């Protein structure tokens, strides 16, 4: 039995140039009717206002990488990067991380330049509640497709802004250029939030969700661009891979093409599923795309404990 959900936050502007979340949150701060559900506190919040103001991803460092306990525990000082100071403030308001008082659910809204469509990001493959929520969202959105990306990995998982909540949910919609607000992308993200809140409302109302199964893509490895001796990109995403997020990639398929026009194929001996193909913000993180495997996640029956 799970306790009913009480406190939810919706974060926008964790990356200041990913505009859909910024404008949805700003709209909901003015008129929150759409995100209210009886018995639930739903708080919209801009996490990186200085980056939003400058329409940049971040000021000093990526906010979505500094919510680890070490950074959250550092002594507050003006010398700390802006985003680390901001992370500590956010942890006070919506956490503290790993404590009883933290928010139940945080939805963190993101865009990507990759052709990933609607994406839900999961950090824990054993989380029945979230797997049930994702199953509900996917079913409600159909025929619009929505993929689940599992970032549970011993070394590749990162300390996200939303990780201070008991149930962290990443919402990523693309493709959208940085600094651009597309109406179609905003509509898709809006629908994802609506279905998520409906699910929570049904859950709190005592609805029983029988065991379910969803398909998911689990991150295995990040692949950098081939680079020259100066560290500059020497080969780029091949036209056959560009925009083909989630589609199976087989050994021998073209992956990169050098600036001189030579094709570089996928090595290895098994099919992979590419994700975050040609994301602008990942050039500096040395990631041209991520390789994922496809798996199924199972969730047990869930029902709120007050019924």
């Amino acid at each position: 039995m799970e306790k009913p959900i009480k406190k939810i936050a919706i974060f926008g502007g964790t990356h200041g140039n990913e505009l859909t979340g910024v404008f949805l949150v700003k709209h909901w701060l003015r008129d929150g009717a759409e995100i209210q559900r009886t018995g639930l506190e739903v708080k919209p919040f801009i996490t990186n206002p200085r980056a939003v103001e400058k329409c940049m991803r971040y000021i000093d460092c990526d906010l979505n990488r500094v919510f680890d306990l070490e950074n959250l525990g550092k002594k507050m000082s003006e010398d700390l990067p802006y985003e680390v100071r901001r992370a500590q403030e956010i942890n006070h308001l919506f956490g503290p991380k790993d404590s009883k008082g933290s928010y139940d659910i945080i939805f963190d809204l993101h865009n990507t330049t990759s052709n990933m469509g609607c994406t839900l990001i999961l950090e824990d493959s054993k989380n029945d509640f979230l797997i049930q929520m994702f199953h509900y969202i996917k079913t409600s959105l159909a025929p619009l497709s929505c993929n689940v990306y599992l970032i549970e990995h011993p070394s590749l998982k990162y300390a996200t802004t939303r990780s201070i909540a008991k149930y962290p949910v990443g919402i990523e919609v693309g493709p959208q250029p940085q600094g651009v607000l597309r109406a179609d992308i905003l509509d898709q993200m809006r629908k994802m939030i609506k279905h998520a809140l409906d699910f929570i409302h049904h859950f709190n109302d005592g609805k029983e969700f029988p065991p379910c199964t969803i398909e998911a893509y689990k991150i295995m490895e990040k692949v950098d661009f081939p680079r020259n001796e100066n560290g500059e990109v020497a080969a780029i995403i091949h036209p056959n891979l560009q925009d083909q997020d989630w589609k199976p990639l087989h050994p021998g398929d073209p992956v990169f093409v050098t600036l001189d026009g030579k094709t570089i194929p996928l090595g290895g001996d098994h099919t992979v599923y590419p994700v975050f193909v040609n994301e602008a913000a990942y050039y500096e993180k040395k990631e041209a795309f991520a390789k994922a495997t496809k798996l199924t996640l199972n969730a047990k029956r869930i029902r709120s404990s007050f019924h």
Partner: protein
Amino acid sequence: MPGDLGHTSTVCLGATLQAPVTWRSPDAHWQEPLRRVAVTGGTHGNEMSGVYLVRQWLRTPVDLQRPSFSAVPVLANPAATAVCRRYIGRDLNRTFTSTFLTSKATPDELYEVTRARELNHLLGPKNSSQAFDFILDLHNTTANMGTCFILNVTDTFAMHLCHYLQLQNSEPPSRVLVIEASEDTTFSVDSVAKHGMTVELGPQPQGVLRADLFSRMRSLVASVLDFIELFNQGAAFPAFEMEVYKFLGCMDFPRSEDGDLAGMVHPQLQDQDFEPVQPGAPIFQLFSGEDMLYEGDSTMYPLFINEAAYYEKNIAFMKSKKLTVSIPALPVLTPNPTPLT
């Protein structure tokens, strides 16, 4: 500069519009082939096709070589390119005005003002006889503009170049955007040389390098240099007519009192660059849900729809009208050009 002027003729801009055009007489300028040609990339440091092409050419310049000349690759805004931003202090491609170019250097001036003066020294001086013959400036846009050439309608040489490019590279089709500016009102990198043009390819997000646009940009540059070579070898380019889009003005997003966005480009307008928009068609969708309609009195052709860099310039899209221009023949180079040195 005035001493170079030859006779004046007219370029017909559709049935109702005619503008005077002056080109240098066959006795003066066109005795000489075009020798000093520059290709600039990274004028905006996050428009990646040009950045990577210039980097490539700086390592292996052979692609820019032709029998009668070699084009010089220039990374126009190195500081912005290094941090993958459009600019550091101000938009470099708006800084080539005589006010900025002739201003006295100060220690606290913006990076791009210093850089514009450097480029004017390297490729100009603008409006002088020592200026480069041709500058080709490479850009990307987040708008769905495909292949677009941007130039001054009075630059007959560049108009012929566009015509040649359209014939050589017909798949995918390209569009020509003409602006009407005099030497006092131009402000872009390509206005430093005697002739110039901008190539704009999209859609591509800032900071992203797409292989398809990279190779298309590279082919286009090759065709530009081929055209200049043909001209230098004495080829004749007769008069022709061409459909162009003439820049009319800009439209901002609907905004609230505090200047923040109040709506978005309407889904029916998004990605519809160069498609006709009739009065009454929806152009914006407000966050409150209503549609805002186009209130002009005639068909409008939008472009640069939802370009990321234009939000801060208060531009949601630009307006243009479609018309046909008649371009006179290019004077042919004399049969025995100056021997190659």
